[in-house]
């Protein structure tokens, strides 16, 4: 049976950071919006990115406009998401035989310095090998020189959620775990969508325009209306280490001359990325041992003790790069394009936004919203470049003050402030829940309960994305049972549902951990297995 939802101006399909940013942009222009995400917010390409808001100096070799646009928009994001971002200072080391010698590398940085003020960043500094090792004692003794370079880091899960939240506050409706199954049509015209909601019901939603922001799934969505989007999807794998391995982000040259980066983001470090054409099933992405070996081999040349560190998991995502014939993956442009399918395929009412990268999500949303509003005859302008995201406006407390006010540890307060900014104290409205539920992430029961109550957390994996549950070295061993209780109390789960939630999370997490487990990872698995040996149905 299919229910009929209310009609709106625009339905946006896809809750990655671009779709979320688009819903926000449209809602702030006064457009009525329904945002639909088949899984969870930023659970696809956005979440599996390198977590960087960067200008991309390597694009200087191909396309300065992309670098300029990217830096300009990164500047906007830095201003509107102040609490979510952190400075990533790179050391770009040079070893004998590297593709770029120090002079060419410094030249590129001198050029890039012209763009750095656009995103509130400092110019580069050139260092000798010895000075670089003073900054980062883990660097190889073979490093002969280095330059610094600044970018910004962000947790894409929180960035996407902040956009969803702001869209909702501006009047949009946003539903995760709501998968679009068909586009509704009147003749050739797209007039809405049919989706399966989180509770399993089929619902129809009418709209004047439907925007396909489904990332690598965009061709599949467009095909529902016999429209075409040509992408050249590229798979990107990252290894996630359980802690900060270095103060500075470090670049390294891989065996094929590509650049990979080791980037600390708060309490984790990402090593990535691979970049390979992908023809497989988007729902069955796997991290392959070869990809792990490739990344570790590259990092080891510059950061020799990388193999002694403990990987916690790996991520895989697919970049929705615009189709181009011939260039190898690394040289594909990161341009984006808005398709009005009335012009390209004779399908009025359907738009697709594809290509681009995380750093440009706000600009991509703005350009798409301009196109949609122009078609709908709406004249309101974009407000997303200046309006702070939730938590970024107003003054945030200091960690020790928040800790003292609510009886939590200062570390828990610092993490909370990073996620919620000036709205952190609202999260702690229930002071009885100051106890830590995830000790590795210093996550309080109050924040977890809040995420279920107010942040659309419906599964433990959603909580991993929203508040970092089980993101640390214990990988959930010590916390998922209690976490299921806390979330279950909010969502009305019975004992059996709590067990199922734990099992589902641990099995999913295992798929991400299996490709990178070392002996200490196996010790962790043993502990987890032992703790759950008595469970009905095993684990």
């Amino acid at each position, binding site marked *: 049976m299919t229910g009929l939802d209310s009609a709106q101006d625009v339905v946006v399909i896809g809750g990655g950071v671009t779709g979320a940013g688009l819903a926000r942009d449209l809602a702030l222009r006064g457009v009525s919006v329904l945002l639909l995400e088949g899984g969870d917010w930023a659970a696809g390409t956005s979440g599996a990115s390198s977590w960087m808001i960067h200008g991309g100096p390597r694009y*200087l*070799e*191909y*396309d*300065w*406009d992309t670098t300029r646009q990217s830096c300009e928009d990164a500047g906007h994001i830095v201003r509107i998401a102040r609490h979510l971002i*952190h*400075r990533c*200072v790179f050391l770009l080391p040079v070893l004998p035989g590297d593709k770029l010698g120090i*002079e*060419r590398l*410094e*030249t*590129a940085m*001198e*050029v890039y310095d012209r763009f750095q003020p656009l995103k509130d960043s*400092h110019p580069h*500094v*050139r*260092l000798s090998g010895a*000075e*670089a090792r*003073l*900054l*980062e*004692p*883990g660097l190889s003794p073979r490093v002969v020189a280095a330059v*610094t370079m600044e970018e910004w880091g962000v947790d894409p899960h929180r960035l996407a959620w902040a956009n969803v939240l702001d869209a909702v506050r501006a009047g949009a409706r946003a539903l995760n775990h709501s998968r679009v199954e068909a586009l509704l049509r009147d003749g050739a015209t797209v007039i809405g969508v049919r989706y399966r909601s989180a509770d399993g019901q089929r619902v129809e939603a009418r709209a004047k325009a439907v925007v396909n922001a489904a990332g690598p799934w965009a061709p599949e969505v467009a095909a529902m209306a016999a429209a075409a989007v040509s992408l050249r999807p590229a798979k990107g794998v990252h290894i996630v*280490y*359980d*802690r*900060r*391995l270095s*103060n500075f982000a470090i670049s390294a040259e891989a065996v094929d001359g590509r650049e990979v980066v080791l980037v600390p983001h*708060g*309490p*984790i470090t990402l090593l990535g990325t691979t970049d390979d054409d992908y023809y497989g099933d988007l729902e069955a992405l796997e991290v392959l041992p070869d990809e792990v070996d490739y990344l570790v081999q590259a990092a080891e040349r510059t950061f020799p003790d990388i193999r*002694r*560190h*403990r990987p916690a998991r790996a991520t895989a995502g697919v970049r929705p790069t615009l189709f181009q014939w011939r260039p190898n993956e690394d040289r594909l442009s990161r341009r984006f394009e808005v398709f009005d399918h009335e012009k390209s395929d004779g399908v009025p009412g359907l738009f697709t936004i594809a290509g681009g990268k995380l750093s440009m999500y706000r600009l991509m949303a703005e350009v798409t919203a301009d196109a949609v509003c122009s078609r709908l005859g709406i004249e309101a302008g974009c407000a997303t470049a200046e309006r702070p995201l939730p938590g970024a406006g107003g003054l945030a407390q*200091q*960690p*020790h003050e928040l*800790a003292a006010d609510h009886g939590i*540890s*200062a*570390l828990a307060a*610092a993490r909370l402030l990073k996620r919620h900014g000036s709205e952190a104290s609202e999260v702690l409205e229930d002071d009885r829940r100051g106890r830590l539920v995830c*000790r*590795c*992430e*210093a996550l309080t029961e109050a924040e977890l309960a809040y995420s279920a109550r107010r942040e659309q957390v419906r599964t433990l994996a959603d909580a991993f994305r929203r508040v970092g549950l089980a993101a*640390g*070295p*214990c990988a959930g*061993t*010590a916390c998922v049972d209690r976490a299921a209780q806390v979330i279950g109390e909010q969502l009305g789960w019975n004992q059996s549902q709590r067990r199922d939630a734990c099992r589902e999370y641990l099995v999913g997490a295992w798929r991400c951990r299996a490709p990178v487990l070392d002996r*200490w990872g196996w*010790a962790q698995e043993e*502990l987890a297995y032992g703790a759950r040996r008595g469970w009905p149905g095993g684990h």
Partner: protein
Amino acid sequence: MGRRSSLVRLGWAYARHQLRRRFRGPLPAHAQDVLNTYAEDRLQPLTLSERGQLPAISRCVNCGLCALVVKRVGGVRLADLPAAYLRDYTQLAAAATDLEGGDPGTHALLSAAAVCPVSVPLAEVAAAVRRLGAS
């Protein structure tokens, strides 16, 4: 702007760079200059010894056995030092108040380390956390 134009501009920049290098030489830069620039971001480097211990610290499986021997360092459960506090050491200054108070002493920490099934060097962990928290 296409690839050809990008390469021409980079080529021009390279020529200017080489000329500058020839007539002015490299501008001196030191690690301390970089640290001063990023003081607000708290990118204090680990010592060589701390750096060397980091892989062993990341072995912690948060089993909690060590906390049976030494409950707390300051206000923090001992097992949380490697599993939580020494994960993002740039944040330790913000969490310094958690570490105020009782110091169990090296002997007790060595006893706790002795029961650790994955040999996390807990005395060194406590020392590093205190140093970075105070810096």
